[in-house]
């Protein structure tokens, strides 16, 4: 028998080429817009042109005369079915259609259903809405003003625009440390409102069968099971007769986690009309109404000794949540995992406070390529540490190394209560500094400064908290954040794996197959991984917050080990020895000490269906629901080198190095691809993206003409490297990686630009850092004309 090896299996650590690609490269992906059902109708929204306006009336008569228009739904019709309002993931209520008033520009006001999308758009044009403009609240600081207009007068007990106050850490102890500290820095930063903007917008096709009561919901969903349960709760659909199918998803990045009015209306329309209905968001609708991210306005302070030992951190954040509190965060964590903002450093105490407010802007607050406000947290600490270094006249790398949690301190309990699983920060930092040639770069910078040339080096050393989460603490709408995996090994030795998570491009069909290949000795090409169909997949909370590998990866490995335990009994039976005499070695079962006496998994699988031992249940399959004992804590050292033209403010990223430690790596090629993509999104946020509003609450970035995605021309060349520190509590030691590069990179870029200008007294530039902003500073400082 030929040797089975990790390479021949396509097991862990192999850059297996992706199995899903064969359909994508031939145009045979199956995205939401590719779903065409017989007799299908199309939905189109009428949206509010005003940020805040009373609705005196809606006249659908002319719209209904448009050829092809079948129906027009307004809040009035929805109210008759008790569907006018829906719960948000954050426990607020959101208008499915605006009834008495509209509270943000682009809000859904009426829904026109027609025979095709052109007729639906024609119909939407003809709906007459009588608006009466109200004063909008645009600035989140203004929202807290006691004279500010009340946005949510629909809520009985809501007397102002304040949503919640959330605190972590010890205020009194932190204040005391600040009082006695040698050095204190205070920094105001804005993490601007941005949008995940996946290439595919959101959409759905709903097909309700009036006879059987069955409802099929094809949905751009990062969390199909959770969404099915939400549909059951919101629309009263029976879960056993509701099938959510998330087909191929054209990118998610958090945008496809919430439930949007478009989904609810399309379902309602199909139920009322008894025909399939399709709704596909336009790009403008996507940018103006669904799932924005960030919008955190922060005052951060650090207290330190004069020789650079950090003592304490104090953070006060004002969070703009828009008109409905529709952010995606675990129930008991309204500011998500933001208290990870103490970062990679030891300190004696910390205090973090977040106040959230309503404004007349689109609702959201999704975790855009980020684990629940971790990007905001990493930005705050890594900007603040740089400012502390400037104040102390210390090298920012040296200051970080001085305060790092040491490898011997792991598992490390932070002052805000998290237990970091593993890490060797000094090692990762050293690799990054050596590889970029840090000392030489600093010399070059000093020489350039003498000549008046501008060059900066920015460091970010981030620690993430991902893999939500342990069910003792984490749920969304009461649903435990656990995930299932089911493995069926077929008689001829191939296998089908079904998961409750859902890839949006991460390559699960390949990487989860590799976990099973490694655990069971079945070649990856003989393993099919299926996700996204609630009729077949085990329950799970979906893919976001880098939770697929930490949670569903654990479930997959443990389900495979259950299969292996059963197969071992069969192997013993086939080898005619007792089970104790059988060991799993070189991906086969072997009689201990007798290398020639072996049985493969394929042989055991065949026997499981043809020749199972007496008294043993036939078949070879297992299901496992994994409840992670803790989060995982990936980290990394990112260094950005920037050159700035001192006359125009134009800047160019000369080098960007990302050294990541995400624990055990399943597929290095896929991991590197995730890092390239996340860095590019971080680069976009740092240098070009912002969803802005004017004083009237008009969205100024409603298309790709003004909400910029970097092209291949602007995007820097990315350099990557890694250290590997496995998670001690995870079944395969993996920590998750998809979001690290987006969490780690914005501040590396901002730090590099601020570093280039630090000798001019510049301590902060808010994102997006643009040549225009830099030129204004250079002009003010007398450098540029």
């Amino acid at each position, binding site marked *: 028998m030929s040797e089975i090896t990790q390479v021949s299996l396509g097991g862990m650590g192999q850059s297996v080429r992706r199995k899903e690609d064969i359909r994508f490269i031939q145009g045979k992906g199956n995205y939401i817009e590719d779903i065409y059902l017989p007799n299908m109708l199309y939905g189109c929204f009428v949206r509010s042109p005003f940020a805040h306006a009373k609705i005196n009336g809606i006249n659908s008569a002319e719209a209904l005369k448009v050829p092809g228009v079948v129906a027009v739904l307004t809040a009035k019709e929805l109210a008759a079915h008790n569907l006018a309002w829906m719960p948000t993931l954050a426990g607020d209520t959101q208008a499915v259609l605006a009834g008495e008033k509209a509270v943000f520009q682009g809000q859904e006001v009426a829904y026109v259903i027609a025979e095709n999308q052109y007729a639906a758009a024609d119909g939407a044009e003809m709906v007459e809405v009588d608006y009466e403009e109200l004063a909008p609240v645009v600035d989140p600081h203004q929202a807290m003003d006691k004279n500010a207009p009340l946005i949510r007068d629909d809520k009985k007990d809501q007397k102002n625009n304040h949503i919640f106050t959330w605190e972590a850490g010890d205020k009194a102890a932190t204040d005391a440390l600040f009082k006695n500290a040698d050095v204190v820095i205070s920094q105001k930063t804005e993490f601007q409102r941005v949008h995940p903007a996946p290439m595919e917008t959101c959409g759905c096709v709903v097909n309700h069968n009036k006879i059987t009561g069955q409802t099929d919901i094809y949905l751009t969903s990062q969390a199909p099971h959770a969404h099915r349960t939400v549909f059951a709760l919101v629309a009263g659909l029976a879960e056993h007769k509701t099938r959510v199918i998330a087909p191929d998803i*054209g990118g998610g990045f958090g945008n496809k986690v919430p439930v949007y009015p478009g989904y609810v209306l399309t379902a309602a329309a199909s139920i009322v009309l008894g025909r399939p209905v399709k709704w596909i968001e336009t790009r403008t609708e996507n940018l103006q109404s669904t799932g924005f991210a960030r919008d955190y306005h922060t005052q951060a302070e650090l207290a330190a000794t004069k020789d650079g030992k950090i003592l304490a951190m104090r953070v006060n954040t004002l969070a703009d949540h828009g008109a409905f509190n529709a952010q995606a965060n675990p129930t008991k964590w309204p500011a998500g995992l933001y208290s990870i903002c103490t970062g990679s450093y030891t300190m004696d105490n910390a205090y973090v406070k977040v106040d959230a407010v309503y404004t007349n802007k689109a609702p959201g607050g999704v975790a855009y390529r980020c684990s629940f406000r971790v990007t905001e947290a990493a930005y705050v600490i890594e900007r603040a540490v740089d400012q502390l270094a400037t104040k102390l006249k210390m090298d920012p790398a040296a200051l970080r190394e001085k305060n790092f949690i040491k490898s011997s301190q792991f598992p490390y309990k932070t002052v805000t209560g998290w237990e970091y699983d593993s890490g060797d920060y000094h090692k990762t930092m050293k690799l990054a500094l050596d590889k970029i040639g840090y000392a030489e770069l600093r010399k070059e910078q000093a020489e350039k400064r003498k000549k008046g040339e501008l060059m900066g080096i920015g460091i970010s050393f981030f620690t993430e908290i991902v893999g939500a989460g342990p069910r003792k603490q984490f749920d969304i709408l009461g649903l435990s954040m656990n995930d299932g995996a089911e493995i069926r090994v077929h008689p001829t030795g191939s296998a089908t794996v079904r998961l409750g998570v859902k890839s949006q491009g991460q390559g699960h069909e390949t990487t989860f197959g590799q976990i099973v290949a490694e655990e069971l000795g079945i070649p990856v090409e003989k393993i099919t991984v299926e996700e996204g169909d609630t009729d077949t997949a085990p329950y799970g909370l979906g893919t976001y917050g880098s939770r697929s590998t930490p949670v569903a990866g654990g479930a997959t490995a443990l389900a495979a080990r259950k299969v292996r335990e059963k197969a071992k009994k069969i192997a013993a039976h086939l080898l005619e020895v007792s089970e104790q005499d059988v060991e799993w070695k070189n991906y086969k079962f072997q009689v201990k000490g007798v290398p020639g006496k072996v049985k493969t998994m394929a042989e055991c699988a065949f026997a499981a269906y043809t020749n199972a031992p007496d008294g043993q249940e036939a078949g070879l399959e297992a299901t496992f629901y994994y409840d992670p004992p803790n989060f995982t804590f990936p980290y990394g050292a990112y260094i950005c080198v920037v050159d700035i033209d001192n006359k125009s403010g134009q800047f160019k990223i000369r080098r960007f190095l990302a050294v990541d430690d995400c624990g055990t790596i399943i597929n290095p090629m896929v991991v590197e*691809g995730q890092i390239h*993509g996340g860095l590019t999104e971080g680069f976009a946020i740092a240098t070009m993206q912002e969803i802005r509003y004017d004083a009237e609450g008009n969205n100024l970035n409603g298309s790709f003409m003004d909400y910029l*995605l970097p092209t291949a021309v602007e995007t820097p060349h990315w350099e990557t490297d890694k250290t590997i520190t496995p998670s001690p509590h995870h079944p395969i030691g993996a920590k998750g990686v998809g979001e690290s590069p987006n969490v780690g990179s914005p501040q590396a870029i901002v730090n590099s630009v601020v570093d280039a200008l630090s000798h001019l007294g510049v301590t902060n530039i808010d994102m997006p850092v643009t040549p225009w902003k830099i030129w204004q500073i250079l002009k003010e400082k007398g450098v540029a004309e």
Partner: protein
Amino acid sequence: MSKKEITITVNGTAHTASVEPRMLLTHFIRDVMRQTGTHVGCDTTSCGACTVSLEGQSVKSCTIFAVQADGKSIVTVEGLAQNGALHPIQEAFKEHHALQCGFCTPGMMLSAVGLLQRNPNPTEDEIRWGISGNLCRCTGYQNIVKAIQDAAGKMPKGVKL
């Protein structure tokens, strides 16, 4: 709205249909022909997911009316593979992990083929400019550039889209 009968050859097969003059070419390809590999990612000709080859030129099919393509020939992603063999650009995208979610991929490959037909040996800069009308949100373009460099030497001789 009045309709006009048009004939468009898609991937070598002529299709005749009666369409509204305002129908976009991309909707003709997707909704009428049900060739769904051509995607729509924006409303403003920015993203390039809908790129097809029209008479040998890469065009964004969301910005052309179907009636403008009357009597013309187009190639979409479904027409890249020939006789059961993948096109070199398809092979290269798979080999170099030049796609993740796959949504931009058809348009990106069509633009790349257009570029390589105009310029068989592009520099990295020329490749980056050549695909700058196509947005990708997942890959950061680095592996796409690699794939196009790899495919450059392998383009079928004498065959034009």
